[in-house]
């Protein structure tokens, strides 16, 4: 195990604005890291710091064991896809692609061949002679992407490289990127807003918020055992439903408060009675049943279908979202019963948002869930 990228206590200020707060990160060689977080949380800043484009304010940054704080970008041997593309406007697509090769003195014919290969995978072959200003948004993004992957650097840094591409192309590019990564044994850091990308491409997911790393780990670990309410809400789409709850008088059950309705769920391991908690349940873990058959009865608010799935939102406070495969036959205004898979219920401290099992079960990700909830009672 060689650490390829290592950040220790990295801070970054933009003037008074604290953009990265005490970032500690250790990435092994060959890892594909997905960096996710809400807009403005510091993902690009972190990426740019890794590339050497931003000078970090304090802390140390190592790549392949070497301190990099003052090493100029071109000596770091990383390739980056800029969120803003940063295409060379005075060069054709082909010239944009081959730029890094030409700089390195690769022969013309060879560079051209490499460009053609990359362009073929990104679907730019017919645009090689165009200038960036003559391209569509997605085409530009593909040029930015291609420019990075034409090289064989130590590390790839991708800043939302697929955001402007259509679904089919995205699926295709996803595969290509991952294949390239594996082929080169490169280390990649990949910023994305796309849940599917983060979950399916990455070996390791880092969730940031407001300049802080909230949690990192294997994708499904984050999905199954989010460290706090923020991560729970952030990972997974549609997002987890959160319901305010209190631990009952005897500490063995929680009362979920859905405005008009309440549900009482038994706890296997008792908690302090009266403690305010937040219960979280993912949409796909709620099943629609006939009214009166589930844990709750709720009136239906909006029903939206994407074709393959239907999103049903309850007209309650807070709203609950349920996903059904296929078209479903629920209409707005219906009263439906919701059956909750209590094995999938997450509990968070109402104030700190911390996951409540955390103290007990930290670190043994593979073990069975520790928070047992009895069958829902009405």
């Amino acid at each position, binding site marked *: 195990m060689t650490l390829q990228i290592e950040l220790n206590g990295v801070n970054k200020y933009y003037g008074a604005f604290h953009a990265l707060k005490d970032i500690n990160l250790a990435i092994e060689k060959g890892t594909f890291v997905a960096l996710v977080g809400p807009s403005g949380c510091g993902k690009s800043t972190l990426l740019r710091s890794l590339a050497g484009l931003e000078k970090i304010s304090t802390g140390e940054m190592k790549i392949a064991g070497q301190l990099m704080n003052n090493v100029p970008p*071109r000596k770091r041997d990383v390739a980056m896809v800029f969120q803003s593309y*940063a295409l060379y406007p*005075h060069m054709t697509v082909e010239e944009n692609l081959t730029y*890094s090769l030409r700089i390195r003195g690769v022969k013309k014919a060879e560079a051209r061949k490499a460009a053609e290969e990359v362009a073929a995978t990104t679907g730019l072959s017919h645009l090689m002679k165009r200038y960036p200003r003559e391209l569509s948004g997605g085409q530009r993004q593909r040029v930015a992407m291609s420019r990075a992957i034409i*090289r064989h650097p130590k590390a790839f840094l991708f800043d939302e490289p697929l955001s402007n591409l259509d679904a089919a192309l995205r699926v295709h590019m996803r595969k290509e990127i991952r294949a390239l990564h594996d082929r080169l044994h490169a280390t990649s850091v990949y910023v994305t807003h796309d849940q599917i990308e983060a979950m399916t491409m990455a070996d390791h997911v880092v969730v940031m918020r407001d300049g802080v790393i909230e949690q990192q780990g294997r994708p499904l670990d984050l999905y199954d055992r989010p460290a706090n309410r923020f991560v729970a809400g952030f990972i997974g789409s549609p997002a987890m439903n959160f319901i305010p709850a209190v631990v009952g008088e005897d500490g063995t059950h929680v009362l979920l408060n859905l405005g008009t309705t309440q549900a009482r769920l038994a706890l296997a391991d008792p908690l302090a009675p009266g403690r305010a908690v937040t219960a979280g349940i993912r949409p796909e873990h709620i099943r629609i049943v006939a009214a009166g058959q589930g844990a709750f009865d709720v009136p239906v608010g909006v029903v939206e279908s994407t074709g393959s799935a239907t999103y049903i939102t309850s007209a309650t406070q807070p709203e609950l979202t349920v996903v059904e495969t296929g078209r479903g036959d629920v209409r707005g205004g219906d009263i439906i019963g919701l059956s909750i898979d209590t094995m999938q219920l997450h509990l968070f401290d109402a104030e700190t948002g911390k996951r409540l099992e955390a103290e007990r079960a930290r670190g043994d990700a593979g073990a069975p869930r520790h928070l047992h909830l009895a069958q829902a009672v009405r």
Partner: protein
Amino acid sequence: MKRILASVTDGKGFDIGLVLLPLAFLFIMSGLPLVYNVVMSFQEVDMFSLGSFVRPFVGFKNYVDLFSQPETRPILLNTALFVSSSIAGQFLIGFGLALFFWMNFPGASWLRGLFLVSWVMPGLVVGAIWNWILSGDFGVLNFFLRETGVIEGNIFWRSDPNYSLWAVIIANIWLGTSFNMILLSVGLSGIPKDLYEAAELDGANALQRFFTITLPMMRSTIGAIIALGLIFTLQQFDLFAGITSGGPNNSSNVTQYWAWDLSFRQYDFAKGATISVIMIVFVMLASVVYVRSTRHEVRG
């Protein structure tokens, strides 16, 4: 009517108006005088007939006369040398300075501003001062060169036919550097920073970034500066008047000074105009080059 009005506020009419108005102004104020000069070069001009167009036409006589003069060829060659060396010097030094001051360090922008000095100083003063600086006996340039051991005896910059043109070129480079520098600074400021970032990640070192990003991105600025530098250099007059007066023996004479000398010293206005037509042709060729170069500009 309404359509025209709408076109003027929103459409092509707006653009056409914006161009035609100044063009018309320029045509009246500069175009007609230009034509006047061209016409004059085909006429016999009497100093007292300056006020009218009606003068005897002599065809190409003025041209034939001019080219049969022995000094014509050396003066044209001098002009070419003067223009090309001056522009090269101004541009290179100006670019160097612009890049230097572009690196952020405290005081950079203040000091950069001071370089405008060559642009503010009156031509008369600049000519005189360079006259003294380049003077053979008491000149400061010789003094420094001697003190630093570069030369043994004095170089008579102004009076040695081998140096006289270079004397003016040196002064002219000094004069034009600030103009180049400040405008290139403006050009530099227009290049998006992320291009440099991308290039740096692509592995380009400073020199490569300069040649592959800076230069091509500044194409329109550089084109404009060189085109204008050419015109300015072709109009440089004060330095010749101040330093060498075209001498000795025409060794530092150039078309613009010569044209002036013919027109206003010897009152041979037709010949003066004839030379100016030669200059026009020269600039015309350069303009075509410039205009063509704008085709490859990058629009932001």
